[in-house]
């Protein structure tokens, strides 16, 4: 009797969750489904299967987005920003934990405090600063901005990882004649590698998806990122859903693929990242 009751509860729970999940997932399904329909069918039969597979929607959207340029820009900006963030944050975290000084303590406080500054409070003067430095007309301006802003959170997470490195290992290496650089590269970096992966994914998603920094720093046909291009496309082709929908699908495809490949790592990473906060 008791087992049967548990069974019923389990089935109700499963069906309930399934329904919520379907509602949650429906927008993606509808966008993907309609992205291969002719415009006329999108307007009249939104829930049906495509009558003809309009693969050319995708090539039209690719051209409308100027995807080859835009994708290259986004990949360059996100990958180089993320690597710089990780590398600099690891260096700072190592130095703050193992070689603290008056300066490093002040710097740590400033970094932590900056987590509360919204980008909108920095964006206006940032444009002026970057153009004074001559960096506002290249991808470099965007990259440096992402690194400067992303540094605080990454350092914060890395500090936790460096603290967990057994200090005896570092001391032993020092006695064996290693200098601090060797200790950092050969001992500390390999041990904190799991944290690298977590931060890599978090920051990659952030930069890939970011709109506001790109809008301020890379708002130029030559420098556009995927998010900017999507926004512009909707300005120009607002009602041409046979172009807009495949454009959306292309812009989320990389994120979808990473999600499928690394699903468990991402979820574990988010959880551990938050717990350290």
């Amino acid at each position, binding site marked *: 009797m008791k087992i049967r009751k548990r069974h019923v509860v389990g089935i109700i729970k499963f069906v309930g969750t399934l329904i919520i999940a379907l509602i949650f997932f429906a927008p993606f399904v509808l966008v993907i489904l309609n992205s291969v329909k002719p415009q006329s069918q999108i307007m009249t039969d939104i829930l049906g299967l495509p009558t003809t597979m309009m693969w050319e929607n995708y090539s039209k959207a690719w051209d409308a987005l100027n995807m080859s340029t835009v994708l290259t820009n986004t990949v360059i900006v996100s990958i180089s920003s993320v690597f710089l963030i990780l590398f600099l944050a690891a260096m700072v975290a190592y130095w703050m934990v193992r070689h603290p000084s008056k300066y490093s303590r002040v710097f740590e406080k400033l970094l932590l405090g900056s987590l509360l500054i919204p980008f909108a409070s920095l964006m206006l003067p940032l444009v002026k600063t970057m153009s004074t430095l001559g960096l506002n007309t290249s991808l470099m301006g965007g990259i440096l901005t992402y690194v400067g802003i992303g540094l605080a959170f990454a350092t914060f997470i890395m500090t936790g990882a460096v603290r967990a490195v057994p200090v005896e290992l570092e001391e032993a290496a020092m006695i064996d004649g290693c200098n601090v*650089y060797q200790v950092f590269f050969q001992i500390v970096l390999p041990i904190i590698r799991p944290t690298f992966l977590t931060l890599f994914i978090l920051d990659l998603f952030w930069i890939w998806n970011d709109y506001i920094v790109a809008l301020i720093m890379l708002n130029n046909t030559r420098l556009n990122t995927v998010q900017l291009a999507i926004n512009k496309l909707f300005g120009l082709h607002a009602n041409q859903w046979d172009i807009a929908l495949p454009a959306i699908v292309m812009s989320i495809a990389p994120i979808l693929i990473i999600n499928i490949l690394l699903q468990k790592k991402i979820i574990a990473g988010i959880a551990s990242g938050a717990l350290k906060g």
Partner: protein
Amino acid sequence: MNKSFGKKLEHIVFLGPATLLFAVVVIIPFLISIYFSLTDWNGISKTMNFIGFNNYINIFSENSRFLQAFGFTFNISFVIVALTNIIGIGLAALLINKFFGSNLFRAIFFLPNTMGGVVMGYIWRFIFLLVIQYLGMTLNWAIFKLPWLGTEETAFVALVIVSVWQGVGYVMVIMIAALAGVPLELSEAAKIDGASSWRTFWKIKIPFTMPYITVCLFWTIATAFKMFDINVALTKGGPYGSTTPMALQIYYDAFNSNRYGFANAESIVFFLIIFLVTSIQLFLSRRKERAYE
């Protein structure tokens, strides 16, 4: 001599590049912003006047658009934060125990959180403009016949739906990790004492996970107050500016109305608001955590 130089060099190598970047991107702009906020510069011309705190006084004048944006941001943040945390914790409670498909469900609920606000906004623009309208025509239900992005109230609700849809996955992931950390003996003991699972959840598990709830609250509040890209994509701040959040108002004033000095004052006030709200939240949450200890 040589040794102390090496020591200094090490400091510079490890902290120098990060310091430089941080200064250029965060510290210097922040200080410049305070300076510009005291001027009437339009952002382009060669002349600007120092006008003291006039910009700040104007922000708090009667028909200030920034105050309107603040009102909107505050109200919608309240609704979004409440719903995101309640639904997120609910999903966590639902998915904490493994069952058939539970991993896939977790991934689905988390998926919107890994995507950008602009694209999410446009996906939902498609849903609200075409799909809902189509359902309205075929099913003839009143709720589907509303002009979802066309009126103040419905645009507000639409933004809440998209934001909550995007945020619950984050709360769910953290709360699953949090609930998994509740010692089994605690909830078992409560059950033996005759407590219902509902009571066990509220009286044992939630207090135990309070530090994680603090993180969720902090994140959802900060995200909601900084909202920008979902509005750009979904409503463009309309109708009639009714869904313009603070960050977007700053952008409009600086780049569309050329009120650069004024917009800088707004951005400083924006920072102070976020600082104040998150500090109050952290203070209250920490006090609650301590009360539970």
